[in-house]
């Protein structure tokens, strides 16, 4: 038997090397000499022992089972997807287990929902966790029956002895089983034997989401809490010159006004908090507050016009090379048939319908409790610990549901603000951002420019250059980009390795144009920007080459999986069908987060604009948990992708955001939602992402469809589809 301490060390070593703690979900934690008693199950039954088989599975001696979901749910379905991975191998049905959201403690490994990583990141480790526990239960049962392990099997929470009427519930075995060595390489089920994975299952949390019972971040109430509303700097980074709170303090319910700070990952801003007995009073108090701000140079440095002007200037110069095949510049200079174009994508707010909020309680005994709808409680716990100056083990971190996020709630400025107030006030504080805070304060998806160059020869696309220009998330948020370095995230998404386009000559380059406007990842990160330039320009080159856009792409791609995606979209969207006058079809393909998605959109002329007749999306995400999750996420990606093409757009003038609420920052409404059809390719490949990959091809498919229908090539997002004149 391996020594407990040795395996602990190896766990730490492995995690630190890979950065993926869950790589050994069947870690040594179950090998406690005295199984850990988890007190929160069945508190009334003193005789029940709750045993942590491994960090993700708690089986009680009374047979009840709890599984841990290590990825917060923002609508992507992780509360079903993650436990399904365990339940499949453990042979329990999800309606009989209790789900617990992980709390940020390191034993659960990475707990960040993001990068479309839940299923692809946990596919093996959580299944192994379930399979290892099952093998331990089987071994225990076999011993008791004096039978061979091969004669025992698990089904629906029990171990059975073949050819007999004997069985034990997991609860009857768990005490003994938990003392066994955790198998390192438990046998995983053959996918053909899956009962849950890959099958349609209704999500068990839907009933509470349709009855008002689901608890989101904004729904947390704790005794004796005060409410906070925060006056941020209109120019985000302005410094406070003076505060006149005389009218604010007259508002009934307002308790006090205090300076506070908004700690973003890369810098800190001044802010003023209004503390009140209820949030409405705090908001009224904010409206009555007068703050004078010193904005310094922000009028210049926080201007989207200035920013984009700088990107267009950068497009005239050579960028930092990420990859190059052949001498692109020389070939381009001499090419007879060539094209050059700039594609622009705007800054965007995430605008989850639930605004940013948090509840933090710093207690007299030096501990703290937090309720925050973050995408990752592990990172959240670290930030809270730093903000409060309290060690992680003295902080209880609760993660309620996220009312949407799309990347936003992984940026903890709002949580840091709440910590600042809770620390100062020594009372539980509930802080809620207004919609105006959410829209005007960022962080935003960065606006980007794609400078495209290419040439064709003999009816084929033979040269291609994508020069990505704009602010870097790695650079701004993490201060992690060297001046001579191309953004590692961005270049990965637009590399030929990712697109699988085998251009005879190609170049991918990058120029960093900085801005003070705070930015962060937004659903599908740079792919949401870069898909627009890449896939519209491929169509432009195809046209120059006299090629059908589908054929031009197939000419460039030999990768079987990508070809299958293209062939499938052509078939499902009836690419070759004869269209009526004024109709057009456009397609695009983009790979991101380990999956490949293609989109085909059909549009018709409608007065001076167009209307979207239909959207067909194809996704090859390898193995998946639930086809209905995949479809739902792809529907969401279609709506968000079209919204990003034809709505919204954040602009800053003289340092201040020009949009403030949904009357100016428009998002798609139900009457504008097109007919959509989604097809999943069952490739049997390793799981890829689902929450994001459907988005990047949507905007370019629309742009290409508009060109097909109207002859008009659009290169700047957003555009107004009702008026393209």
């Amino acid at each position, binding site marked *: 038997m391996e020594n407990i301490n040795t395996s602990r060390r190896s766990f730490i070593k492995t995690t630190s090397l890979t950065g993926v703690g869950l790589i050994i979900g069947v870690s040594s934690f179950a090998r406690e000499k005295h199984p850990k008693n988890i007190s929160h199950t069945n508190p009334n039954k003193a005789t029940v022992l709750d045993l942590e088989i491994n960090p993700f599975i708690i089986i009680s001696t009374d047979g009840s089972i709890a599984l841990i979901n290590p990825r917060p749910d923002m*609508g992507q379905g992780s509360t079903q997807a993650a436990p399904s991975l365990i339940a499949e191998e453990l042979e329990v049905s999800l309606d009989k287990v209790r789900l617990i959201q992980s709390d940020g403690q390191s034993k659960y490994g990475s707990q960040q929902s993001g990068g479309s990583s839940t299923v692809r990141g946990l596919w093996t480790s959580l299944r192994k966790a379930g399979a290892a526990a099952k093998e331990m239960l089987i071994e225990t049962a076999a011993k008791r029956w004096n039978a061979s392990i091969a004669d025992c099997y698990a089904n629906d929470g029990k171990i059975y002895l073949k050819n007999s009427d004997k069985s034990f519930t997991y609860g009857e075995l768990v005490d003994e089983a938990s003392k066994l060595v955790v198998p390192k390489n438990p046998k995983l089920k053959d996918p053909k034997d899956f009962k849950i994975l890959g099958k349609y299952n209704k999500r068990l949390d*839907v009933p509470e989401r*349709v009855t008002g019972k689901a608890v989101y971040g904004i729904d947390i109430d704790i005794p004796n809490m005060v409410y906070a509303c925060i006056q941020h700097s209109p120019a985000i980074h302005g410094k406070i010159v003076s505060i006149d709170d005389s009218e604010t303090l007259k508002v*009934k319910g307002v308790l006090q006004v205090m300076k506070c700070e908004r700690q973003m990952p890369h810098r800190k801003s001044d802010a003023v908090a209004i503390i009140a007995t209820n949030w409405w009073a705090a908001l009224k108090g904010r409206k009555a507050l007068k703050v004078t701000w010193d904005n310094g140079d922000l009028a210049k440095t926080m201007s989207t016009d200035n920013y984009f002007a700088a990107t267009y200037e950068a497009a005239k110069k050579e960028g930092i090379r990420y990859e190059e095949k052949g001498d692109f510049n020389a070939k381009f200079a001499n090419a007879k048939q060539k094209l050059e174009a700039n594609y622009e994508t705007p800054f965007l707010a995430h605008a989850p319908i639930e605004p940013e909020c948090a509840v933090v309680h710093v207690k007299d005994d030096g501990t703290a409790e937090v309720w925050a709808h973050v995408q990752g409680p592990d990172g959240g716990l670290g930030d809270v610990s730093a903000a409060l100056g309290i060690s992680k083990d003295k902080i209880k971190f609760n993660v309620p549901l996220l009312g949407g996020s799309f990347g936003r709630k992984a940026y903890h400025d709002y949580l840091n603000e709440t910590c600042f107030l809770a620390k100062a006030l020594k009372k539980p504080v509930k802080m809620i951002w207004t919609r105006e805070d959410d829209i005007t304060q960022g962080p935003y998806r960065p606006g980007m420019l794609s400078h495209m160059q290419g040439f064709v020869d003999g009816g084929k696309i033979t040269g291609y250059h994508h020069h990505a220009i704009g602010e870097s998330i790695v650079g701004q948020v993490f201060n992690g980009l060297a001046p001579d370095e191309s953004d590692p995230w961005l270049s990965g998404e637009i590399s030929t390795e990712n697109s699988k386009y085998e251009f005879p000559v190609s170049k991918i380059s990058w120029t960093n144009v900085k801005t003070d406007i705070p930015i962060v990842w937004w659903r599908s990160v740079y792919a949401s920007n870069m898909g627009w330039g890449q896939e519209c320009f491929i169509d432009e080159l195809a046209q120059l080459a006299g090629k059908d856009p589908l054929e031009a792409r197939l000419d460039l791609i030999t990768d079987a999986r990508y070809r299958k995606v293209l062939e499938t979209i052509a078939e499902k969207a009836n690419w070759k069908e004869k269209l009526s006058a004024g109709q057009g079809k456009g397609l695009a393909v983009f790979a991101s987060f380990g999956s490949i998605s293609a989109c085909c959109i059909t549009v018709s002329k409608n007065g001076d604009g167009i209307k979207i007749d239909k959207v067909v999306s194809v996704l090859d995400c390898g193995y998946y948990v639930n086809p209905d999750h995949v479809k739902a996420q792809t529907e969401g990606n279609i709506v968000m992708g079209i919204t990003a093409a034809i709505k919204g757009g954040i602009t800053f003038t003289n340092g201040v955001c020009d949009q403030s609420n949904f009357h100016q920052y428009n998002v798609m409404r139900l009457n504008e*939602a097109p007919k959509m059809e989604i097809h999943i390719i069952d490739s049997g490949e390793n799981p890829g992402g689902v929450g994001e990959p459907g988005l990047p091809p949507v905007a370019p498919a629309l742009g290409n469809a508009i060109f097909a229908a109207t002859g008009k090539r659009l290169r700047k997002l957003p555009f107004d589809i009702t008026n393209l004149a």
Partner: protein
Amino acid sequence: MAIFNLTVNGKKTKVDVEPDMPLLWVVRDFVGLKGTKFGCGMAMCGACTVHVNGEASRSCQIPVSSLAKNAKITTIEGIGETQLHAVQQAWIEEQVPQCGYCQSGQIMSAAALLKTNPKPNDADIDAAMSGNLCRCGTYDRIRKGIHRAADSLQNTNTGSGK
């Protein structure tokens, strides 16, 4: 502060709040019903939709003092108290919610629509539901859910099917 006597989900309740406080915050923070959501504070998103005398209303824009004395307020918690409302049932069948945050408002708008128009066509649905934003993009399923709920209500009412 002032005392207001409200009827919420059939129950009489007394709150002591400022007269200009919107019904949204009264319901959430003084009556304690958290199902009604805050989204924009200017009637642009519909997350705060409740029924006032059966009519879908944006509770973020209704000062509590403007409510008639006998106003009947219904929230998401009250619409299917004894058994799930047909719209809620349809939402489960169609697996409508993703994050679900806007769905209280969506369901209240849909239920109000079906009360006055038991068999809405797509244009009717567009007109009734376009004030409710869903950032997750569940619109296709919302539309299907409303058609399904309409069918099930019709079957119940005519007794023609289960």
